């Protein structure tokens, strides 16, 4: 849910740049909003204990974590502040840890 909101804000943040003429940013903004919607639906799926939703969340969080870790390790000047570490590394780890429930709990 939290991650969905963060992606929604990232998507919305691209819109002013799209309005200023950066056409690709419009596409990326909309893609981010769709991802936010999908993440929200997955969150609902997890609450309903759907095993497929849980698997997708695992895949999504691990992808996010690995991607963010790569960005932090590659010297491209990515932000290393506490907020970045929280949202891009700690949050995916926390979600994965919290979802480590016995498989039987999910249908």
């Amino acid at each position: 849910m939290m991650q969905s909101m963060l992606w929604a804000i990232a998507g919305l943040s691209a819109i002013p740049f799209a309005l200023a003429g950066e056409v690709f940013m419009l596409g990326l903004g909309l893609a981010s909003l769709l991802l936010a919607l999908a993440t929200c639906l997955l969150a609902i799926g997890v609450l309903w204990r759907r095993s497929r939703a849980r698997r997708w969340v695992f895949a999504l969080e691990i992808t996010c974590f690995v991607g963010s870790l790569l960005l932090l390790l590659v010297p491209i000047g990515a932000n290393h502040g506490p907020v970045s570490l929280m949202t891009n590394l700690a949050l995916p780890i926390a979600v994965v840890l919290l979802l480590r429930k016995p498989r039987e709990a999910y249908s």
Partner: protein
Amino acid sequence: MFNIATDHAIGLYAGLLALPLALIAIRLRPARRLVPGTVLGASVLMAMSGAIHLGLITTHRDEPITALLFLLNGVAYILLSLAFTWRWWRSASASLLAATLLGYLVYIAAGFDSPDQVAVATKLLELTALGLVLVPVRGELGRRMWRWASLAVALPLLTLVTGSTVWIVDLARPADAQHAHAGALLQATNEVVTPEQEAAAAQLYAETKAAILPYQDSRKAFADGYRPGGPSNMPSSHWMNQAYVDAGYVMDPHRPQGLVYANTKHGPVLLGAMFQMKRIGQFGPDPGGPLTAWHQHENICFTPFGFEFSLMTPFANCPLGSIDISAPPMLHVWIVDNPKGGPFAVDIDEGVVKSIDRL
């Protein structure tokens, strides 16, 4: 917004220290088995937030009202983090978290403080804790609909309002003069320009202008290795010479790493040159003092699709398909009149570009 204020750093250490202590405290309490994981999670996050608030008292002793608010807030958070079996725990926690979040937004909007990494991290902790507090638990009767509605509507709205307020305040009132330009860090210089610096800046301007005038013909620039980057529908484009970038020439008027062209209906019109350093954080020589301060673009979201940019959100996220990067320091030399910022400004005045397009 992306810096840690020196008087806030102690709060970060206190919060990090509180994490293992809160986990141990919960582990030692048998009552933890009676409540769901969301409640325990919220308790840990509130303990961290409380420790951050208490830690900040030490560096805000000269601001009695702020220090008192930190004390009350910190103590309330710590007490609630321990009282997770209390009957009114949920309503008290939700009220305190929401009041703290909204209070902080009013505080920064009124100009009493500037948002920094410690503040934004604390707000993230509080938003997450609020979400966990609002999650209905199994077997709970009544108020479930109200909780779901809060979780689905109020929490996203509060997150959006928090992010927007922090962003607007930071853009409108940067924490320091070096961040006066959105997404860019200005080189630290002396404040008042000396006559020697003025003369050196004039010399740099004259040399650069003379050296790049042949590039008014964009075909010559192309022949010499400059290539346009970014979308052509923007008012202006940077043409970069990768060979000069790789060679690492430092402020050489005859080999500027970039040229800036206005994208007009008559074709590219030369606006100026751009010197760029090779490494992030390595500012170039500054002969004109404050007149020729370099700038480094930080926390920008770059996408290879169309080579476009946006700004990273306060929650350190970029739109899908773009990555957070920083660019090495750069210095522009505008050879056209730039009334708003002068010949070495970070940006060219949009009005100038529009007037060139109208010619």
